């Protein structure tokens, strides 16, 4: 049971970190940041852009831990259906986190002009 909740937490953390990385990546090239947060807010976000690769790294580590806990033998979960569901959730989270992480790098390498 504990392994399952750990796997879910790690999967959720990975998606959150991927989302944060994508937010930082997108905000640095999007006029939306100025509209939403004003000039000073946009400057602050741009100054946090250096955190983006670190967020991606933490997302990757979280996914690794989520898989480890989801596929660990003797995790204490006897119900195969629960195991399957946990593993499915971890896979979905891994895909979402990967897409977000990749998307976060797009503005770093292309300025769309």
């Amino acid at each position: 049971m504990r392994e399952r909740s750990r796997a879910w937490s790690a999967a959720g953390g990975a998606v959150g970190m991927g989302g944060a990385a994508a937010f930082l990546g997108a905000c640095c090239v999007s006029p939306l940041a100025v509209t939403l947060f004003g000039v000073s807010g946009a400057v602050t976000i741009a100054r946090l852009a250096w955190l983006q690769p670190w967020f991606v790294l933490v997302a990757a580590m979280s996914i690794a831990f989520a898989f480890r806990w989801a596929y660990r033998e003797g995790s204490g979960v006897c119900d195969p259906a629960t195991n399957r569901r946990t593993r499915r959730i971890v896979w979905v989270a891994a895909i979402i986190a990967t897409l977000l992480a990749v998307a976060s790098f797009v503005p770093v390498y292309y300025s769309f002009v």
Partner: protein
Amino acid sequence: MRKPIAVLMSGAVLVWAVSTANADTPATPSHTRLDDSFAQLRDDFNAKRGHVRLLFVVDSSCPMCLKGLADIDEALLAGTDDPRLDTFVVHVPVIGGGEEHIAPAATLAHNDRVRHYWNASGEFGGRLSAVAGLSSGDDFVYAWDVWLIYGPDATWEGRDPPKPEVLMHQLPELRSRSEFPRLDADEFAREVRQRLDGLADAPVEKSP
């Protein structure tokens, strides 16, 4: 019954009068509109010959451009009132920045000798790119989010701006071009101060 109507009508007339008065009184312009001859900027630039001149090209809705402006302000502009330093900021629409974004962006530069220009067509970035030789391999790189320094002898002749002495940028496409360093506000400020020190004997303009 007549009294409330009279009060309402008086109020309406007052509102109309105030709004008309405001419309007739132009707000303090935050920027100059630049047509594709760039004549106004060229004249302003040449009028400051003998000074160190900075030219920035930004999209005022781009957070990284705003960060660049804020960084240079902290490293240099906010800390000096040297009359031999003039700054020209050209705002171009690249990712959606409009004329309405200029005034808020202008608040990031705390220096009386900063002037803002709006080039609606964005032609200025293209011309500057050609002059400065911005490219990545065979690909043209549009000049925005670029930070230029001109020495006292630079003169703008013809339509295109002169080639800068220093060009820093925040463009991913120029990473491979070592002659164009990525913007480092402290290094930029050092380059400017070095040139200002070289002007020690130059006549200092008096404030009016």
